[in-house]
């Protein structure tokens, strides 16, 4: 079991290091402002679409009217961490919920 434990710890350490490098590295949108090609050609999902997809993975999608804007901010932060959602997903879902309530 000690060998397996060492393998698990090594794997987790590599995952942490990799995650830190990727998440702390500069992203293209921080300094590249030459072209908006990505925006032009990529069809972005709407917040409503992401709300339907992400929420339904665990529970029925909530009605936007059930909470006010301030509550949605609190719930969004909670759900971002609980459901391990990406920043993009939760930002768009929160915007949709606040616009539709």
């Amino acid at each position, binding site marked *: 079991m000690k060998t397996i*434990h060492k393998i698990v710890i090594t794997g*987790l350490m590599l995952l942490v290091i990799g995650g830190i490098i990727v998440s702390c590295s500069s992203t293209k949108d921080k300094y590249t402002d030459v072209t908006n090609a990505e925006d032009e050609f990529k069809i972005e999902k709407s917040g409503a679409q992401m709300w339907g997809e992400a929420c339904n993975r665990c529970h029925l999608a909530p009605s936007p009217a059930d909470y006010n804007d301030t509550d949605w901010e609190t719930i969004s932060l909670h759900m971002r961490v609980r459901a391990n959602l990406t920043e993009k997903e939760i930002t768009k879902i929160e915007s949709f919920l606040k616009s539709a309530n």
Partner: protein
Amino acid sequence: MKKLIVLILIVGFGHISYGQTYNDFETDSIAASQPYQPSKTQFMIRGYGHTGLNFMSAEGEKESSYVGSAFAPIFLFKHSDRLMFEAELEFELENNDLKVGLEYADVMYVLNKNMTVRAGKFLLPFGTFMERFHPAWINRLPTRPLGFGHDGIAPASGIGVELRGAFDLGGPKLNYSIYSTNGPRLKDGSEEPEEAGMLMFQNFEDNNNSKAFGGRIGLLPFADSSTEFGFSAYSTNGVGETDSEYEDVGTFLYAIDFSFVKQIPAISGFIDIKGQYNNSDIDDATFTETHEDGDEEEYTFDNKSNSFYTQLSYRPTMASSDFLKKLELVGRYSNLNTPEGAEWEEQSVQYAFGLNYWLTWRSVIKIAYQTTDSVGGHDGGGTTNGFYIHWAIGF
């Protein structure tokens, strides 16, 4: 005297005229006042509760009971856009007692767009069921699958520190979680001989210096986020008490989970498939069994357990009838196998079928039938059938 009267008049009229200026109703109206600005610090109470009626029959014996209202308030304290404290209490009526539990209580901080750190007591992402699906208003059936829950073979929560986050891979998504906790403690049989060799995950104060390390990686390969595959691992070098003969007994657990949720027009509704396989491997150890005549006998066994569940549910959300739209059909299969030769040896298979009616997106009436065939176990095995009518609500 005249000067005094003049002074009083000046002060009096001056005060009145100042007061009139101040109480200008045009400038002091509600419309002109500052608009409502919510503070960044927010406090919310959410949670869930459920209640119901159970009919059980096992080996010719029948019993029925209204089961107590479980109440699980969740406290959310948002300190800023990055910092939050969350806690869940669980009040449950069980065996004529009120059981109170702290499901989780942790502080979390968003480090950057891909990383969040949590510390405290948190739900462990060992698979997905206990972390995401166990609340009564989310779980599609009134019961949990075999091997899950507080006495299951897989950990539900732990005290420690965790790093978690998600990456957008331009369509597919990847989420991860890495944590270290106190880890489980081994039941050596001194208090409950029939449970010798079991792991107890409620280890609030560590019984040794060996910490548990674990993590989960989840991959959502499709852009519509309909499908998720996950792999979890959990390992520790020592689960026994310090300076005991079990100090160096280690354990390795892993879980594989799967989820598919999608609205399919061809079948006019949502289909939801979930599954999880848990495997537990604990180093072999020698335990002592005391017979009725006082004689002691040592025994050991290959301490390996596993459990599995898969669940399929269907909601006809695109049906023309409003009543049909709110219905949901559920079926679940689960099994549990604990070590051969252990006092708690058990092989169980369970089937559960349910019909749900969704009053709202967070309130559901569940009607279910469940049958469990067991060999061994606490109750000695046999067939147990159950019929449940439950009402769960999230808030």
